[in-house]
């Protein structure tokens, strides 16, 4: 029988905050915002004589790599219905953006570096007129030699895409002496792995809208994962003060990392600055494909060595990732890759080098996992290859090497608490054993071959080795009503709900009774980005701190009133009462009025920044994260040896999340991550210049989904809010590795490139000898089916 929970809100699957609007069709995404939404105050529309917001459209480069000699916008400006045409010259502030390094102009400044580069911005009364205006803009280019892939970019005489050269960044991590250690290794596996670009393919194409408020504030609605970052970037671009710009996160239809960079916010801001009229920019899907971040394609060279018992001794990894024309999150991806490349395993000698390379393609940026999914493909394949060579069981070799409490990582960090990897392996084991015994051996047809595979992972919560704080504010009004202010963008993962559960738990109120103000830079403070699986842990702690402060003030006053020690008081139903004596109580309204009268504060700010130790510049040693999530997934697949089709039948997903504050949210993330992992493993390949629309790019449909068995493991994280860590990216990371290991198990032939699409799997089937009239039964076996 399940023990009764000690919590009222934590661990409960309450209804999500925002769901009613979404199922009624009332929730407003940016493309839904009309003039009446964009002009909430009293500005008369009569003089604006607009029926709709002005449509914005951008002219993008027609060259991969060129200098701009001239941009002629006169013909375009003259078209009736065109409200304005802008180029880099019209940007009043600093024309340079970038979430880590600033190398990306809002509008091209003398040079274009990809066909996604915006060259000019048009504002017009209708989309039709805007498109006409784009066609009327004349740009003369002086072509430069295009650098289309990493090989070209790294060639000694390669044209420089940016002044500093084509290597944006290199992260090195060195521990011990890998070169020497390899000499002592019994078994060494050295392979090269390759992954392709992947498109985020959130269902809502990027969009934004804006207007100028009666006090001259530029108000921008954004489909975004970080409204406060957007705000900072836009004020910088326009040379404005903080109060002159307001960014409001509208309902956001998924992001997965792509809506961290500015998409249309800068264009909206620029148009508002000059035109002072309501505007809207909605990307077509095709524009979203062309112009927004992709997952970094990787080339990974990995050498892993172990002793004769399978104990890992050394790893050397050299990777190159293609960051496209601009840096975006490239530095973070290279850094995180170097850290996570060891996998969740103890390895004494570590030599990692991750390089981030510019090319003249659409830029790569944050994409669920920041390089960890690509690394996991490599390190989990290596583990299976080692196991195979040593004649060991793949689960056993992971148990031997897997992190436990007290383990030291490749960066020299000792993992003190909340290390649930062994538990994940143990929870998957019964399914693994059963599948090995009963399932994988079943011969259902000569042409369908079953395979099973494991994927393990670890994922550092929060940004890697840098400060990434979150803030929050909680206020009580004089009626005892509670409002939570958070800059934390909820993009569908359910953060708003979780934050109210945390606050509600502390104050003894139902989460739904807490009013929330979310993602509005006029009212909220910076919570950092909704990325790196960080919001439950970091914003959760910020909310907890703020609420603890409010709670403390209320308890002090309550103690005064009820004449008992604070330790004997409890929160319930918007009151404080004496433990064991609910009659002896005082309600929030009374307390609030009292505190206010005394001059005390009812508004409390919380702040949290994970405790990390920055990387040593030489050795990369440090503590890049305060806590890590761990997971293991098991994949059961059926491979059609005749056609290369792979059917993922089941995924068992064991995830250590510290504490599941909202278990159904966690399950939602796991299932969503598995879906994305199936796509990453088998069918998603973004080809620059060729992948134009959703006809060309395949994300899984419901029919492609395996049965998912989610297993939530709660290895309490003492520094987390109620012990919680994070799950958003961990959900995705083990899936493709498990599937690829299963395919390899089925075919006896391994694939070293993602995606393992029809072509690659059929090729492997042919090479394995199973493609033939006997299938995998072999010529001597009778057909018993």
């Amino acid at each position, binding site marked *: 029988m399940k023990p009764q929970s000690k919590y009222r809100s934590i661990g409960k699957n309450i209804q999500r905050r925002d769901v009613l609007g979404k199922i*009624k069709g009332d929730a407003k995404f940016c493309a839904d915002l009309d003039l009446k939404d964009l002009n909430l105050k009293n500005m008369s529309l009569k003089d604006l004589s607009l029926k709709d917001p002005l449509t914005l459209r951008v002219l993008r480069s027609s060259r991969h790599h060129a200098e701009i000699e001239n941009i002629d916008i006169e013909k375009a400006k003259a078209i009736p219905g065109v409200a304005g045409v802008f180029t880099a010259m019209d940007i009043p502030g600093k024309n340079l953006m970038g979430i880590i390094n600033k190398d990306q102009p809002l509008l091209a400044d003398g040079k274009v570096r990809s066909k996604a580069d915006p060259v000019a911005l048009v504002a017009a009364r209708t989309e039709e007129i805007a498109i006409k205006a784009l066609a009327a803009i004349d740009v003369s280019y002086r072509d430069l030699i295009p650098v289309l892939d990493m090989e070209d970019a790294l060639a000694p005489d390669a044209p420089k895409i940016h002044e500093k050269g084509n290597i944006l960044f290199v992260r090195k991590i060195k521990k011990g002496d890998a070169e020497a250690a390899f000499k002592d290794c019994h078994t060494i596996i050295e392979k090269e792995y390759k992954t392709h670009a992947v498109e985020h393919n959130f269902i809502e194409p990027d969009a934004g809208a804006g207007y100028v408020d009666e006090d001259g504030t530029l108000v921008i609605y954004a489909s975004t994962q970080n409204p406060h970052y957007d705000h900072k970037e836009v004020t910088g671009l326009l040379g404005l003060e903080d109060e002159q710009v307001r960014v409001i996160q509208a309902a956001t239809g998924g992001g997965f990392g792509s809506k961290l960079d500015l998409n249309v916010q800068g264009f909206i801001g620029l148009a508002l600055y000059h035109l002072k009229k309501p505007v809207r920019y909605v990307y077509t899907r095709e524009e979203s494909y062309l112009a927004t971040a992709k997952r970094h394609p990787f080339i990974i060279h990995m050498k892993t060595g172990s002793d004769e018992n399978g104990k890992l001794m050394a790893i050397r990894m050299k990777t190159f990732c293609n960051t496209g024309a601009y840096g975006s999150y490239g530095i973070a991806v290279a850094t995180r890759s170097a850290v996570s490349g060891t996998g969740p395993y103890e390895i004494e000698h570590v030599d990692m080098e991750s390089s981030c390379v510019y090319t003249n393609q659409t830029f790569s940026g944050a994409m669920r996992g920041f390089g960890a999914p690509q690394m996991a493909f490599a390190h989990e394949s290596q583990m299976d290859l080692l196991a195979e060579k040593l004649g060991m069981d793949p689960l056993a070799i992971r148990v031997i090497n897997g992190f436990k409490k007290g383990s030291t990582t490749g960066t020299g960090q000792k993992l003190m608490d909340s290390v649930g990897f062994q538990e994940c392996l143990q929870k998957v084991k019964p399914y693994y054993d059963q599948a090995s015994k009963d399932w994988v051996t079943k011969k259902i047809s000569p042409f369908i071959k079953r395979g099973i595979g494991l994927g393990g992972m670890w994922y550092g919560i929060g940004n890697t080795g840098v400060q990434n704080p979150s803030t929050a504010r909680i206020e009580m009004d004089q009626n005892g009503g509670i409002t939570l202010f958070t800059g934390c963008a909820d993009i569908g993962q359910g953060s708003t709900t979780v934050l109210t559960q945390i606050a509600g738990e502390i104050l003894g109120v139902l989460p739904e009774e807490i009013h929330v103000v979310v993602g509005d830079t006029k009212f909220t403070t910076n919570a950092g980005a909704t990325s790196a699986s960080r919001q439950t842990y970091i914003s959760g702690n910020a909310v907890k701190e703020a609420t603890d402060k409010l709670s403390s003030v209320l308890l002090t006053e309550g103690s005064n009133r009820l004449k008992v020690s604070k330790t004997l008081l409890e929160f319930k139903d918007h009151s404080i009462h004496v433990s064991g004596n609910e009659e002896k109580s005082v309600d929030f309204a009374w307390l609030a009025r009292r505190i206010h009268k005394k001059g005390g504060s009812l508004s409390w700010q919380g702040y949290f920044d994970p405790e990390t130790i920055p990387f040593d510049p030489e050795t990369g040693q440090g503590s890049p994260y305060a806590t890590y999530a761990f997971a293991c997934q098991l994949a059961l697949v059926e491979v059609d040896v005749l056609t290369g089709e792979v059917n993922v039948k089941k995924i068992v997903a064991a995830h250590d999340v510290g504490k599941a504050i909202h278990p159904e949210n966690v399950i939602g993330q796991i299932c969503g991550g598995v879906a994305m992992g199936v796509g990453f493993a088998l069918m998603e390949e973004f080809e620059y210049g060729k992948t134009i629309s959703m006809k060309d790019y395949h994300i899984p449909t419901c029919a492609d989904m395996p049965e998912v068995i989610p297993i939530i493991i709660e290895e309490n994280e003492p520094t987390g809010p109620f012990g919680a860590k994070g799950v958003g990216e961990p959900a995705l990371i083990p899936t493709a590795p498990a599937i690829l290991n299963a395919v390899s198990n089925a075919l006896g032939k391994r694939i070293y490139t993602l995606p393992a699409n029809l072509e690659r799997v059929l090729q492997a089937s042919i090479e394995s000898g199973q493609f033939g009239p006997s299938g995998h039964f072999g010529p001597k076996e009778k057909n018993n089916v």
Partner: protein
Amino acid sequence: MVHIDFTINGQQKALDIPADITALELIRSLLGLKGTKEGCGIGECGACTINVNGRAINSCLMLAAQLDGTKVLTVEGLATENSLAPVQEKFMENHGVQCGFCTPGVLMSSHALLAENPDPNDEEISKAIAGNLCRCTGYKQIFVSVREAARLTQQKGEGGND
């Protein structure tokens, strides 16, 4: 221009419209019903799914002119004044919604399915919603929601209200 007469969410409409606009543009821009979404514009994502004469169709692929003489239902028309439709209620209860952008389309496909087949098995549910792409949920909680909505629909003895 072309003249069309049709009903949408129970209301009669008589409009003169350009010949080449899509049903999606008509619904969103001319009628101001923003619940139906554009995810791709080419029938590859299902976010724009509406019901026309009880059948789920991609409104981005239908000419608005082809709505003449039809009964149209969009997400705004699912709920009555007093209650949500079974699919809406159960999607809320069973965590079938994350970012919410695919949700109106999924609701309309599910609603059309249950009106025709109040007791679908998983294969039938899959066939009905395979044209609705979701990037957030991984579909599991969506299936739970549809199964629960089917149960509720059967209890209520309703067939749908298009």
